[in-house]
């Protein structure tokens, strides 16, 4: 797996033709050019995914069954719905670590309200809370200039605490809300997967074709330069944090629906998986680089690894070791890629 990741870094650093064409400045060596080729990179990721799928389908006969694959995709969907706006944030050079506890908080709030009101009120409350979380995160980062890592880390603790307070320590059971998480309205595909595909499609359009998306790329690439060409970086960042908050609410609702209950401990460590998928998908921690498509493949890779290891009866503690290792490797390769691009 490590080998395939190494491959995807290769096309980026290489570009001898460009180096030769550039007249070296008289006072120093010429910089090697960086080519923005995302396609071969995505290709290498897909290759890695295919290798993993092949490996697990040979190891366990249950892997390649329709039921298992749909399970896999459903598991991916909860993470994925959050990872899509997460990618937009990381492209802009920011990160949201409050997503896991945010999802739990939205779920618990929705369930506790829905116990006394109709379900719709609970759903609307969850959406409102998600937006509010996004606004607070965004304002902390853009107005108060709190480092996003710290601001959302603090928010993560705050929300987890509030979740426990509101759940009063226990799990809130909720009947009549299974539809969102378990319905299969179309071609037997689970609704959460359809939601993920829709969210991703919207994000692809936003990032590729709109001023909003381009502004996020520009701000992540060089915030000072972006401001000097008239990009409204702060406004766009707040919007991206709000998108993240919305996706957190959506994901929290899906989770609650799947479990028919809201647990204050749900989605613990979700931020780890989300960041792993994004970085694995080629978005750079230093901003300005990355694609939604890449994140989708990153999500699938993580999903296949988790699912495959479970089928092979690997101890779930080792699965934690695996996902931590995957995150560190992904970041290490991101750094390697940046160095290759620079020298």
């Amino acid at each position, binding site marked *: 797996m490590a080998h395939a990741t190494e491959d995807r870094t290769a096309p980026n650093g290489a570009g001898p033709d460009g180096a030769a064409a550039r007249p070296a400045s008289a006072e120093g060596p*010429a910089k090697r050019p960086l080519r923005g080729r995302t396609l071969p990179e995505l290709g290498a990721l897909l290759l890695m995914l295919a290798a993993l799928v092949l490996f697990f389908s040979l190891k366990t006969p249950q892997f390649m069954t329709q039921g298992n694959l749909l399970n896999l995709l459903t598991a991916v969907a909860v993470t994925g719905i959050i990872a899509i706006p997460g990618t937009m944030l990381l492209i802009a050079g920011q990160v949201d670590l409050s997503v896991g506890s945010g999802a739990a908080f939205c779920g618990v709030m929705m369930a506790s309200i829905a116990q006394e009101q109709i379900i719709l009120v609970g759903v609307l409350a969850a959406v409102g809370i998600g937006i509010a979380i996004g606004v607070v995160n965004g304002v902390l980062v853009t107005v108060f200039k709190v480092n996003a890592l710290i601001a959302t880390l603090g928010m993560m603790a705050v929300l987890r605490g509030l979740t426990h307070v509101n759940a009063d320590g226990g799990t809130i059971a909720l009947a009549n809300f299974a539809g969102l998480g378990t319905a299969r309205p179309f071609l037997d595909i689970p609704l959460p997967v359809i939601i993920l595909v829709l969210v991703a499609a919207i994000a692809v359009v936003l990032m590729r074709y*709109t*001023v909003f998306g381009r502004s996020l790329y520009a701000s992540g690439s*060089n915030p000072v330069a972006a401001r000097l*060409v008239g990009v409204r970086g702060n406004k766009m960042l707040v919007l991206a944090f709000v998108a993240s908050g919305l996706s957190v609410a959506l994901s929290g609702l899906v989770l609650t629906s799947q479990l028919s209950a809201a647990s204050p401990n749900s989605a613990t460590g979700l931020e780890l998986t989300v960041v792993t998928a994004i970085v694995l998908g080629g978005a750079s921690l230093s901003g300005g680089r990355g694609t939604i498509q890449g994140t989708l493949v990153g999500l699938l890779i993580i999903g296949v690894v988790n699912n495959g290891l479970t089928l092979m009866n690997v101890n779930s503690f080792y699965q934690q070791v695996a996902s931590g290792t995957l995150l560190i490797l992904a970041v290490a390769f991101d750094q390697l890629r940046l160095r290759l*691009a620079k020298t």
Partner: protein
Amino acid sequence: MSSDRPQDPAPSAFSLRARNIRKSFGGTEVLHGVDVDVLGGRVLALLGENGAGKSTLVRVIAGAHQPDAGTLEFGSPDGAAETATGLDPPAARRRGIRMIFQELSDAPDLTVAENISLGNWPRRRGLVDWRAVRQRARQVLDSMGVTLDLDAKVATLRVGERQIVEIARALSDDAGCLVLDEPTAALSAEECRRLFGFVRRLREQGVALVHITHRLDEVAELADDVVVLRDGAVSAAGPADRFDRTELVTAMVGRDIGAVTRPEPSTSVTGTPLLVFDKATAPPAFEELDLVVHAGEIVCLYGKVGSGTADVADAVFGRRRPTAGTVRVLDRPPADGPRQAIARGIGYLAADRQREGALLTRSVGENLAAPSWPRLSRFGLVDAARERRAFTRWSEQLGIRAPDGAGQSLAGLSGGNQQKVLLARWLERGSSLLALVEPTRGVDVGARSDIYAALRGMAADGAGILVATSDYEEVVQLADRALVMVRGRVTRELAGDLVTTEALTDAAGG
């Protein structure tokens, strides 16, 4: 180890004769066989334009670069010579060669005494001997005739004082040769005088000094010998008093002097003032500044780095706010930040292209179109085809070499081509007033003339252009009018045939 050596009383002990030094970077040779003698007790002025190879040459001498060919011949006091084909940094250090770089390389949060022993701590039983640190600092500062608070953090000192600390560090362990890379660029006149005092004192102590500069007045004031580099070769060398100013300029600029010609008198200048500064003050950058840029006119603000020229351009673009006087930009008070400035038709290039201009990870097409996105989009959707067409149009007009077209990432372009893309932003935006800081810094000669032609074209179409630059050749080639700034004030205004390199350097040197 060298500090254990007894103090060598012999003056003029240091002698380095570099012969036929060649050095290439990425297939381009930047030094074509250079000879240079560096001798103890003498000040060698190393002159040359930007990109002539001065820095590369001294980096070879200081061991930071290995020459591809040539020899370094070191004389020793007993007359025997020793030849090396190149040095690494420790070897250069052992030979007593010290270099003071253009940028400060001190540790701002450490004290003066600590900085002087930085990287060469006196030790006692494996621990730093703090008494020796202070003693060494006092000794070397005394020998330089300077009083500085040994316990002051370097960050609290002025630039000139910090430079003194760096020189003190270089001298603290028996320097035989001290290379100063454009040391006066950021200094006030008084700090310059003080620095020159040290240089003379060191010369008397027998230290060999290499003084890199492109300021001719410093040569007359300080140098015993002079070496002029042009395009990587020596174009003049000998005792400093054998050359007068004109000869040195000719040697620096050379045959290319034909290229440094005044433009045709502009016919596009109209009476419409686009930019007016009236006694505008923004301390400490500039004071009581009067300036007018008319439609169709290119006005150059010439001054050394730190003279305030860039701050004036910043004020035009709404990055800096004057505290007194009035500024009218396109008949309005200055914009409230870049976004508003752009909307009003003002374009801007920052001095530091990588840090403040380039979106390196993005495509050239996006880089070019970014300020025009509001116009190129409908309901927030950018028209990608129009964006590509915009790139094609301006890349043809400016001769931008982007091998993969509009989708090429900006980082894959040479410095000159990157700068063309950033300039084309404002052509596409249709800006009527440009404020450009060092628009051709780090740009190769060919791209430079393309950029000048583009600016001329914009002025001919009625744009007003303000260029803040420290490159006097640029002023000569570009300016309809030129203002010379020294320490935040305009000291001279030149127009027409009076815009010459001599007049400019003369006015800026005062």
